[in-house]
């Protein structure tokens, strides 16, 4: 589904990802862990196509297409979703208006008919309940004045509405207390399906207590240095990232 081969990415002329390779199959959940500055968020941003992240080597193939050739919105159209580490505020634009425009943009991209107001309302009601979001929330400006937990829940609501094929969650657990973390995790778990793959970028293994990944990769200095199953995350938790760095240094 997603095949990253020997990917090298520069930001401001500095190499952040170096020769990184990763294969993600349908329905798989991959966790990317690593210390600060290892390139985790760069990977998330480069997949979504953010400006300023220059692919200088390697390839990203997604559903048989060269992902780097696609515009940001077309990647979304192809089913790629990024849950932001820092969701952005859009003053004066209600959550519901933004979601309606987004849902219908994707419908249009896929050559499908736009949802009627009734269909849309029914859908959003159902999905909002899933992340325990009140109706009044939908009328508020996108992320404006939201608490950290509300912002992250809002990201998961958007993900639920847009039904992506590949969801990339960038540090979705950061800034969440334990209750909010549970709500977010149960939202994500509800969205797991054999047709939906996920890449979960996180610094701590805490999130992985609630969302159990199929694979855990450890990123250090721009490359995946270790891959394992869930137990790797637990081992990391216990021994810390310095353990990995020492192993890499030993080479």
């Amino acid at each position, binding site marked *: 589904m997603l095949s990253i081969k020997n990917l090298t990415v520069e930001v401001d002329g500095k190499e952040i990802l170096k020769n990184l390779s990763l294969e993600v199959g349908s329905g798989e959940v991959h966790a990317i862990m690593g210390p600060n500055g290892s390139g985790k968020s760069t990977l998330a941003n480069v997949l979504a196509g953010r400006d300023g992240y220059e692919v200088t080597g390697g390839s990203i193939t997604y559903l048989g297409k060269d992902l780097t050739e696609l*515009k*940001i*919105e077309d990647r*979304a159209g192809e089913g790629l979703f990024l849950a932001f580490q820092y969701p*952005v505020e859009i003053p*004066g*634009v209600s959550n519901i208006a933004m979601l309606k*425009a*987004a849902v219908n943009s994707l419908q249009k991209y896929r050559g499908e008919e736009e949802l009627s107001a009734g269909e849309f309302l029914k859908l959003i009601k159902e999905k909002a309940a899933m992340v325990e979001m009140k109706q009044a929330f939908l009328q508020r400006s996108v992320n404006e004045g939201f608490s950290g937990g509300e912002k992250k829940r809002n990201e998961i609501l958007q993900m639920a509405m847009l039904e992506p094929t590949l969801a990339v969650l960038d540090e979705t657990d950061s800034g969440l207390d334990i209750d909010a973390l549970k709500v977010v995790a149960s939202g994500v778990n509800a969205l797991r399906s054999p047709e939906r793959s996920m890449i979960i970028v996180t610094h701590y293994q805490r999130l992985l207590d609630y969302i159990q990944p199929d694979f855990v990769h450890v990123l250090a200095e721009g490359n995946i240095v270790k891959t394992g199953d869930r137990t790797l995350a637990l081992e990391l938790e216990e021994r810390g990232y310095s353990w990995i760095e020492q192993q890499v240094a030993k080479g």
Partner: protein
Amino acid sequence: MSESTQELDALVHREYQEGFVTDIESDTLPPGLNEDVIREISRRKNEPEFMLEWRLEAYRKWLDMPEPNWAHINYSKINFQDISYFSAPKNPDDGPESLDEVDPRLLETYAKLGIPLDEQKVLAGVKGANIAVDAVFDSVSVRTTFREKLAEAGVIFCPISEALQDHPELIKKYLGSVVPQADNYYACLNSAVFSDGSFVYIPKGVRCPMELSTYFRINEMNTGQFERTLIIAEEGAYVSYLEGCTAPMRDENQLHAAVVELVAMEGAEIKYSTVQNWYPGDEYGRGGIYNFVTKRGACRGDRAKISWTQVETGSAITWKYPSVILYGDDSVGEFYSVALTHNMQQADTGTKMIHIGKNTSSTIISKGISAGRGQNTYRGQVKILRGADGARNYSQCDSLLMGDQCGAHTFPYVEVQNKTATLEHEASTSKISEDQLFYLRQRGLSEESAVSMIVNGFCKAVFRELPMEFAVEAQKLMDVSLEGAVG
């Protein structure tokens, strides 16, 4: 150049859609200004003697006035002798009795602009169902719809030239009573040469049964448009009025110097909305309308309310400060403005709220958007006079910048002579951030839709003040005016 930059570039070069010229036979006075020209305008309009005298008095005052230069705008000096002061489509004698007598090319012009001049169509119609329209083409009004229906309610809605014939006493009483002849340079010029405009009179206790609107179009080359609008709402009356404006694309600058006067008596309310889309000139700043306008309302009675809402997207230069003088106790003044400058456009706009009566209140919400090399200035004055006990003002001025070659400037003046007054002022300047664009595009919106969504969100507090039908228009207009503004 990246792919997306190229696309944006193509959009920047999108043409002004209302820029066509109507090929119609016109009766245009040769360029130049002197007392004979003024006599000729007055003669053609068959005006009563007092009107001619008033015009001449204004002209003589104007000759002694200096051109103002305090606004934050740059332009080459206007040669007032190069402008033609009267242009009218050739018409059967006294103007059209029915639509059949209106030149079909004129009807076509307004149809192209989406302005319904056919009452049947409006009645049967889909869009803008409850609106009466006065259409002003160059210097004359070509058609006013629904006059009979309005007359049943006692409302007078007609070209001001006709009001001069049919209701001279009202004109004599109110014309120049809010904006005196020599108020300022352009208002004074307007007083001397004004050609047409709308006249509205709402009698005591009447709520005007429909939205009134005037549609202004400059067509002829080298002409100025000097319209004059006068709206009077008697005790307890209510009216909502909207004006819209467009002009053909021409390389020369054209002058539009209008005066609008509003009078609201005790408990009356006037809601005045403007969607201004005069030709803005090209990307190099060639051509475009100089929009030098004086708009002022007077709340003459207690609890009167005047509300200005403007969406200014056109014109090479906009210079206007719709104001409210709050004489009556508990009277209310409001100003909601969106001003957008793109390419080389310049806007210096804002308001004046003069508090005289007790417990008067005013609200100012100004949203300036600058793109390209546009310059956008908010200039506002809040004045609380000695007797205005308990006066309140709330001002909010927000600027949105797109790109790094445009400018936003804010000049709020405040003068308070009464200790019991309460004033609040909030201001902000922001940029459309890459983060916002990336966020919305990641959700599937095109770059254009993302910009449009962000800008419309920014303008929301103003758009919601517009009558429903026009709010949608205004939003579309913003989209069109901003296309390609990011990059």
